[in-house]
């Protein structure tokens, strides 16, 4: 392959590829059917090559993107007879996937008879069968209880969809129409990308595009190494803990040993605790994605997130640990937990190497879904908590964002209007404001979580399920900063004592008039509290972000 390509052509091809992925994202946003996709934007797009290298991606969910090359690898290994018009699909975490609700579609792009690239769409589906609605099943002890497993399959053959396979898939989920609608949107976006990439080949010639891609990856690598080489060399340790696995084990440790030498980084997670019987295990691809995510946060935001940027990074882990479970183990929670803890352990370790870049802890996910009957219509409803977004971590750039999200979503999940929610659901949002004193103290303060008082206005009791982590461990403080205050959700029911909610529960009874007092965590603080300026402290008080005598977030 030609090693010399003129820099203008390379810049043009790079720009084109990234605008193609952006366009795929726009098409996806406009055509998806379910709320989780068109509102919460839980999907990602990428272009990979036949060597499973990530060439271009759009800024959607960081935790998806680093996983896609691993999925591509499995498709490449399984199918040796890929033809134009074929479409492939997978979700299984033991066949390149991350967790079952994330379906991934692959469309090959050819130049004549030569296959060169893949356009890829991954999206989170609101249901994938299994024992509980919505895939998050804290009770699961094996993956078969979590939903339908799809190894790499050929969904379309030479331009013709295999309707029999589609029927099989749709029959195994609870909302087949929505499922088909979202899958059609994914295919539409991937096919749009295929057409645009094919046009790029015809305009420049495939060999020029290929040479440009090599040059793009090399340039990105060079850019990344230039950043990393400014960090301090050494072997650095970091750790983070899951509260529990919901099956009786607590303080599950994720350990990162990070070796930084020159412009190379080796992340070794081998010392992490053994795997669990519950859905807090990580799949292999998800673990790789979490490590890539941590690294992406530490380098420059402007560096393209492609395989070139990840070349300085080497990942070591041990199968059978919490970060890389044995086949058959449940893993559904892994895109949030232990992803967030893997990121936190690595960032903590590297804070000694690049202190100006390491940010304090962003929050953990603590979800709740309520199922009941709306007395105004007599219809059943299912409501998912996206409100009460937790706080973001502080950094050398300043205080953290309040009401913004977790390590794995970082301000990419939108919560809808409370007015609309009150119209659509028998719920009353009595209070939804910043949770005072929740941000970790420090030279720069962590962002605040949210205090939500939510009153159930049904006529009959409803049931709630939870999934998440972080009621014991708050988002970590960094370089002397304090931890953010952890999540604290309580059920207030007349005639009963207040009941703290655990993060992995099913079938919580919520009675009419009950109030859920939801207090989401604040982000971690950065730098010693003693270095926080008097003006900043006065401002915190004036704004009512910190009240009383105690400084914010003394942490655990």
């Amino acid at each position, binding site marked *: 392959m030609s090693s010399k390509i003129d820099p*203008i052509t390379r*810049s043009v091809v790079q*720009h084109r590829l990234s605008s193609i992925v952006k366009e795929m994202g726009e098409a996806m946003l406009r055509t998806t059917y379910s709320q989780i996709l*068109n*509102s919460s934007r839980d999907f990602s797009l990428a272009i990979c090559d036949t060597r499973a290298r990530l060439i271009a991606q759009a800024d959607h969910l960081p935790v998806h993107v680093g996983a896609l090359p691993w999925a591509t690898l499995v498709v490449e290994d399984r199918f040796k007879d890929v033809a134009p018009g074929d479409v492939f699909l997978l979700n299984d975490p033991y066949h390149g996937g991350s967790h079952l609700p994330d379906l991934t579609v692959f469309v090959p792009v050819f130049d004549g008879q030569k296959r060169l690239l893949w356009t890829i769409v991954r999206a989170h589906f609101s249901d994938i069968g299994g024992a509980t609605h919505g895939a998050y099943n804290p009770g699961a002890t094996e993956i078969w209880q979590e939903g339908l497993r799809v190894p790499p399959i050929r969904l379309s053959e030479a331009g013709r969809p295999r309707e029999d396979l589609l029927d099989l898939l749709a029959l195994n989920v609870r909302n087949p129409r929505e499922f088909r609608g979202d899958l059609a949107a994914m295919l539409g976006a991937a096919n749009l990308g295929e057409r645009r990439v094919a046009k790029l080949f015809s305009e420049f010639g495939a060999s020029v595009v290929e040479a440009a891609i090599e040059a793009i990856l090399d340039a990105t690598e060079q850019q990344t190494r230039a950043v990393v080489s400014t960090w301090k060399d050494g072997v650095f340790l970091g750790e983070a803990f899951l509260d529990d696995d919901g099956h009786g084990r607590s303080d599950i440790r994720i350990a990162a040993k990070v070796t930084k030498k020159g412009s190379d980084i080796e992340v070794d997670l081998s010392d992490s605790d053994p795997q669990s019987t519950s859905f807090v295990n990580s799949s292999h691809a998800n673990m790789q994605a979490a490590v890539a995510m941590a690294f992406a946060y530490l380098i420059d*935001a402007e560096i393209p997130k492609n395989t070139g940027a990840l070349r300085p990074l080497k990942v070591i882990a041990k199968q059978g640990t919490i970060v890389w479970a044995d086949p058959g183990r449940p893993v559904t929670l892994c895109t949030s937990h232990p992803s967030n803890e893997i990121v936190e352990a690595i960032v903590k370790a590297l804070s000694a190497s690049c202190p100006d*870049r390491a940010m304090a802890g962003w929050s953990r996910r603590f979800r709740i879904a309520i199922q009941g009957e709306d007395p105004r219509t007599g219809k059943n409803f299912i409501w998912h908590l996206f409100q009460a977004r937790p706080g973001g971590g502080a950094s050398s*750039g300043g205080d953290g964002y309040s009401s913004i999200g977790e390590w794995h979503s970082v301000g990419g999940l939108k919560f809808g209007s409370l007015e609309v929610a009150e*119209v659509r659901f028998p719920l009353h949002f009595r209070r939804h*404001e910043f949770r005072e004193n929740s941000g970790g103290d420090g030279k720069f303060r962590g962002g605040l979580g949210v205090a939500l008082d939510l009153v159930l206005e049904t006529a009959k009791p409803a049931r709630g399920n939870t999934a998440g982590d972080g009621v014991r461990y708050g988002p970590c403080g960094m370089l002397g900063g304090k931890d953010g205050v952890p999540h604290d959700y309580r059920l207030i029911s007349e005639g009963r004592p207040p009941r703290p909610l655990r993060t992995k529960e099913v079938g919580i009874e919520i009675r009419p008039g009950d109030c859920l007092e939801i207090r989401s965590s604040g982000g971690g603080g950065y730098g010693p509290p003693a270095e926080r300026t008097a003006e900043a402290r006065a401002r915190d008080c004036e704004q009512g972000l910190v009240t009383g005598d105690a400084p914010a977030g003394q942490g655990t």
Partner: protein
Amino acid sequence: MYTIGIDVGGTYTDLVAIDEHGTTVFAKSPSTPADQSVGVMAGLEELARRLKLTREKMLGVTDRIVHGTTVATNALLERKGAKVALLTTEGHRDVIEMREGLKDNRYDLRSPPPPPLVPRERRFGVRERLKANGEIAIPLDDRSLDEAIAAIRRSGANSVAVCFLHSYLNPVHELAAVERLARELPDISISRSSDVLPQIKEYERVSTTIVNAYVRPLVRHYLGNLEQRLTEAGFKGSLFIILSHGGMAPVEEASRLAAGTVLSGPAGGISGARRCADLLGVPDLVPFDMGGTSTDISLISEGRASLSADGTLAGQRIALRSLDIASIAAGGGSIATVDAGGTLRVGPESAGSVPGPACYGNGGSAATVTDANVVLGYLDAGAFMGGARPLDAAAAEAAVDGVAAALDLERIEAAAGIFRMINLKMADGIRLMTLRRGVDPRKFALLSFGGAAGLHAAEVARELELKRIIVPVAASVLSAWGMLTSDLRYEVSRTHYGAAARISNDEARNLFKDLEQQATGRLRAWFGGPMTTERSAEMRYGEQIFEIDVALDGLDWNAASPVDAIEDRFHRRHEELYTYASRDQEVVFVNARVAAIGEVSQRGQDARPTPSAGACAPRGTRQAWFGAWSEVPVYALDDLRPGHALAGPVIIEAETTTVVVDAGDRVTVNALGWLDIALR
């Protein structure tokens, strides 16, 4: 009698006068950002000079002035608006700062959050609450209101936004609070959410109301000032302001709904583009307005500009319906850099007008798009702005050499690269906009206007596979020219509490009838001429959260079930936009909208230039780069007459714009004297 259009831009204030014979006269005058009315009055002086009249005489025979202002836009961009306080429902004072949980730039975790327009210490909760059906859950508590008003007084705010939950259904608490506020703080400017945007979704409503409160004192002051200056200068006609939705309104209305003026400037450009579509009989145009720091892109599809309520400006959500305009950070001043990986990037940073491109000779040293255009021979350094402001070609070359060295390329290759990258960026913007609107860009013609557009139009069009480019004679003052044909427009909307049950036929009929009475009643107070109305609805499928706009023109409201017909239109529109409809899904009717439109009398057709029998001779030739150096004839736009035809490569120059035409492209001059370019 004259009608005068005045568009205040960042650098120049453009003016156009038209008389009853359709004769138009243009003038340009430097803008005066500190007080825009100074530049406007100077521009009127210049316009009068070109008409060979005194300003007083000209204004004395002018019956209408239509004005696009950037006062609100600049206040938001430069954060120089009022000191605003927010009065809101207790327990919900952080809506504005939560930003729905979103932030920009996914991988940037080290930039601190942008400060909200109203800081937390000036956001005050009041004890009151409405239910989702508009009933009172907690009555407005007088004591808590008194405390909040006392706190607002102490805060020193000079403008207040009032926004309570569910007030779009029942404004009773907002009205009571406003009454008390007006009594206690008679000098404070008040913006009430149920007046500004009576629609469901609290983030949109509170943000829009706050923006209104933020810009309103400035807009009111400026417009009052201008009105007074005009009166003193002898103007006895009506002054109208262009609003973001492209219609115009009297000063009083623009001062009330000041947030509706944030796109006042570019809105004139869309009016101009619509008028072009009309005059040309070309219904599908991409207006492409490229200036020094940014490029505004929109779409005229089937002769109409579309409105959207998705707007944000300077990071602030403004949910009033406005023309769908995408502003891309790409212009003549966009700076070219080479990153650590050796990749060429152009923009989003801009040299602006100060210091400006290196070739301006104002101390700028960064290589910009304009510098590349000088190196490529597209811009004649000596003839820039009609020779009034010559460019420093050596400075342009030195700046581009910096980029060339970093890329290890020849100067001319680097300049061509910069030219190409900026064109790609603008083509991307157009492609995304057509995708969002569900239309194929290839059937559109590019309408090139704004100072820098003619240099790039051909390559941008080629990138998108467009076949045709139109350059109107008024290209450099299209906004001001477009304002001459704007109509009066007053819009009202109301949310139907319909999410839990389907709207009934009678509810729909009554809802639209009420709104229509409200809208036409208000318009009638300003205007005695002919009036039409437009009805539309915002609807969605049950589980979706984005509504789409459904036009209800021509619907038979007396049919047995207009709601069936409305829903049918919704399904069809959804299919157009998103490729599918789900006819078995629940359809939710969210907002009803009515626009009352007052059609002002149009001046005569634009006068047409006389065709010329003979061929047109170039003014000269110069070296320009089209993959290789070639000697290219240079024509003056002023010399071209209807019937003339030119084959590329050619360069066509006017005082404020230059059009570059490549080999194989063909230029004809149409009956209006405009350039009509067919791409190879």
